[in-house]
């Protein structure tokens, strides 16, 4: 079984077991690279070692995978600027972590206000709307006697508040 819990024989493009080992090993090498010791499925790695030992096709695929890995490793990365950490630290301490910033689990996205603040704000808005709605004088003044179904507007049902 591999790391996904699948049967190893399902991994090859042809699904063919040994005898077509050259094809199956190339799929493993593409998924996991040429370093057999680092494969997540060590039973597959052991099987691949056997194929490489006895099958020239499998051996050629492994050599190709090692060459690709070796080629990838030639691409160097420049060292970061020596003062990069200092610059980041200086910018960070200039902007202390705000208490009201809440991360949305692992996404890196943020919202500025916590839910208690939002709930409080929503209550205030609802209070204002309902308060205005049940005051005929205010509403008549604003809307010229228009019938307003405040409860409907708030999604609480069709209670007629003002006529």
């Amino acid at each position, binding site marked *: 079984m591999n*790391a*996904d819990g*699948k049967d190893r024989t399902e991994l090859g493009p042809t699904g063919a077991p040994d005898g077509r080992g050259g094809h199956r090993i190339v*799929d493993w*090498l*593409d*998924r*996991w*690279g040429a370093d057999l010791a680092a494969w*997540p499925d060590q039973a597959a790695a052991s099987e691949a070692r056997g194929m490489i030992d006895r099958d020239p096709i499998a051996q050629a695929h492994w*050599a*190709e*995978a*090692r*060459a*690709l*890995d*070796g*080629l*990838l490793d*030639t*691409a*160097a*990365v*420049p*060292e*970061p*600027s020596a003062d*990069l*950490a200092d*610059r*980041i*630290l200086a*910018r*960070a*301490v200039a*902007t*202390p*972590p*705000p*208490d009201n*910033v*809440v*991360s*949305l*689990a*692992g*996404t*890196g996205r*943020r919202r500025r206000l916590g839910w208690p603040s939002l709930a409080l704000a929503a209550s205030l808005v609802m209070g204002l709307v309902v308060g205005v709605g049940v005051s005929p004088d205010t509403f008549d003044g604003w809307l010229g006697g228009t019938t307003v179904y405040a409860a409907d507007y708030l999604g609480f049902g069709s209670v007629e508040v003002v006529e």
Partner: protein
Amino acid sequence: MDRQPSDDVLMGRIAAGDAPAFRLLLDRHLAAVTAFCYRQLGDRSEAEDAAQDTFLKVWQAASGWKPEAKPTTWIYRIAVNQCIDRHRKRRPQTDLDAAADVASADPNPEQAATRADLDRKVRTAMEALPERQRLALVLCHYQGLSQAEAAEILGTGVGAVESLLGRARRELKKLLAADIAQMKEKVA
């Protein structure tokens, strides 16, 4: 023996505004995250900007980090988002000067030129890969993360990451066929 605090402990301290803890986290992970950003963006200056923004987000959002997530996984997730945003905002490019800088460290000029040429070819091939294939390959091959960790960072399953890796390597084998043939002779 001096026992260094774990990343989890550091994250707790950073959430409380502890600058020395943040410095320690930078010392541990900044180079790797900058290298990751460089492999994605192909430009040293942009990679440093992306790494800087990643760690500033870590500083600002540390209180939202949940202990069930490994800090490095969380940091890489932020870095991935930074790189994706930056990559989409600009045309693909390769920082050839950086390749030359890296190669110029070689005392032999001929070898340095060959190395710079190879470096450029590999980075051009990497740049040609679809974004998620490149992300999976950089996380697993260059950053040395497991497929499971890469899956968590990319918000997908292990099978999907293996599939991305398989397609990436198959494409690279086509793009770098001539160089692979030469390298095969060397490693044989």
